[in-house]
């Protein structure tokens, strides 16, 4: 028999890996990154682990005030989703999620700052990923030459 205390818990009680975000918040961060830069089947924010970058960045490089403010906005976003679509943000469709984020953006200055932060850091994580830099942006670590007069192919 499984003891009763084994069922006496909720999602909130689960400690998170980094001690900053709970499971729901982690899911929201992933979903926001996925909304800002969705996959085209080959590449997107999640396939290059932008969510891992965002969680690490916010957990390690920002102070508690910033984190709790950000968590508050995550909650607001999710409430907006529940209110509008009767489901969590991460369960909504891409189009619905985009619209929810843009609604946040135009609500007030604080929410706009939250939106801009999540957007700019998602772009940063995506653009500095190995896949985007090497496969799409021709990154070469050691060019070893300079040519200041190259014809642009028509």
């Amino acid at each position: 028999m499984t003891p009763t205390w084994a069922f006496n818990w909720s999602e909130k009680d689960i400690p998170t890996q980094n001690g900053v975000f709970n499971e729901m918040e982690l899911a929201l961060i992933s979903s926001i990154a996925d909304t800002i830069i969705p996959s085209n089947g080959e590449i997107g924010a999640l396939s290059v682990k932008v969510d891992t970058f965002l969680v690490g960045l916010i957990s390690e490089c920002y102070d508690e005030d910033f984190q709790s403010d950000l968590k508050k906005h995550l909650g607001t976003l999710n409430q907006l989703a529940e209110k509008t679509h009767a489901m969590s943000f991460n369960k909504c469709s891409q189009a619905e999620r985009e619209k929810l984020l843009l609604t946040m953006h135009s609500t007030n200055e604080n929410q706009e700052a939250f939106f801009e932060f999540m957007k700019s850091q998602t772009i940063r994580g995506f653009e500095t990923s190995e896949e985007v830099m090497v496969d799409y942006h021709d990154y070469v670590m050691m060019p070893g030459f300079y040519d200041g007069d190259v014809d642009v192919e028509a």
Partner: protein
Amino acid sequence: MANVNIKSKKERTYDAIVIGSGASGGWAAKELCDAGLKTLCLDRGRNVKHIEDYPTASKAPWEFEFRGSVPLEKRSGLQGGRWLRAQTIHWAMAEDEQPVVYEKPFSWFRGYHVGGKSKLWARQTQRWSDYDFEGPARDGFAVDWPIRYDDLAPWYSHVEKFAGISGEKDGLDVLPDGEFLPPFGLNVVEKHFKESLKKHYGDDRHLIYARVANISDPQPIHAEQGRGKCMAQNQCNRGCNLGGYFSSNASTIPWALRTGNLTMRPDAVVESVIYDEEKGKATGVRIIDRLTGESIEYYADIIFVNASTINSNAILLNSTSNRFPNGLGNDNELMGKYLTWHNYRGHANADVEGFGHKKTAGDRPTHGYIPRFRNVEKQETDFLRGYAIGFAAGRGTHSDKSMIGGQLRDNILNPKLSDNWYVATWMMGECVPYEDNHIRLHGDLKDKYGIPQIVLSCEWKENDIKQADDYVEQCTEMFEKAGYVNIRATNRDTNPGSDIHEMGGIRMGKDPKTSLLNKWNQLHECKNVFVTDGACMTSGGSQNPTLHFMALTARAAQHAVDEKKKGNL
């Protein structure tokens, strides 16, 4: 016990002591060791070994867990706060290391580790000409330099060949040619501007390839140092595993160590130079061990002070004795005064149309350069001296990132070449040294080592502001004549010191009444002490000054060796 003390003192005695291991200190150590002198080189920071202490040198952008941001835990206690970057955080200084009293706004950048700012410099290596040396005498400021171009030319060559300078022979008398490795080259828009200057200003203004201490084509002397070709990674300030750019750590220090004559002593904060009244000369250096707090004395007949301009001033001002109550060699009480730096107030950029069919490939460690063209032959403006201009053109890419979703992804994955090229320029002006721009020691406040705190009192003068206004006007005109559009040129009230070219305070000169150092960089009043870093500068020129310090250092070290042989030190 007496025997132990004698033995201990002997172990702490060298032929020469060099204070500081940056660009000039490294050169002093190399030259003295090459001449067979047992040399102790002190640095107040931690040791930095070539390659093994460059933790980020070979990392790609995605290998930084936070892509360059620094965790709060790692940045706590360090100067720089949220501006610190993971790529270069190993050079950051502890906040409590050396508090400074800034009487007026000033930005003082310090490199407290072995190698000093030679790890972080812009590597620009333009020679002075006699138009620079003769400035003070012609225009009636500071005092006359005790040397001229011909005195220094062979030493420029000596330093350039060893360091490895990529450059182009331009045949200009305002900026003499040196010993050059091949250039990485100017780009098509820079060449366009070069032609435009020729067309509109004749022989008065030139755009040239900026000479830079990066090895474009390694010679045997570089292989002997264990240094290779610069691969144009454009991340020199992390430290370079290839030794592609010149730094003390990659070049002069390991070279000196291989002679067997160098003892490198990191974590040694110099408190003062010891003066012996009976012998009438300096006999050593007193340090505080940064880690243990212990006070230790080292002894030598030759002392080179290369602690960086402001610290060299502070150390000598703190080296007091009955003979020198105001600081070592400071009978005329001019030490610390006439501090100068470079005028970087001016910035300008513009867009260049008509080159949509051209782009660049690869990278390079330098850019273009316009040597000084104001007041060269004679005084012709309402301000003294002039400015050189750094000049870079390029063609960027852009992606429209105004939206979110699939379009944003596709735009990022497919960046477009910008329609226009850009040009960016920055001013590098010669500031005239003024007596009231100075460094002194605070009467009461001390740092955690018990050393008096430094007071800095420096400000822009009218001459600097007029000079920057002229740069704005001239840059705008040059851009207009070249047909460039969307011109933005500003004279910004940035803090003095932001250029990281502080100079003077222990100036060279002919007369002991009006200068501190003679033409060999010896203190007039204490000949076995040589000051060859930026502190020795009588005037500032408009060139990035490090090459000048290195050449002066090599020249002074040779003189020290000669004088020691003659028994004069």
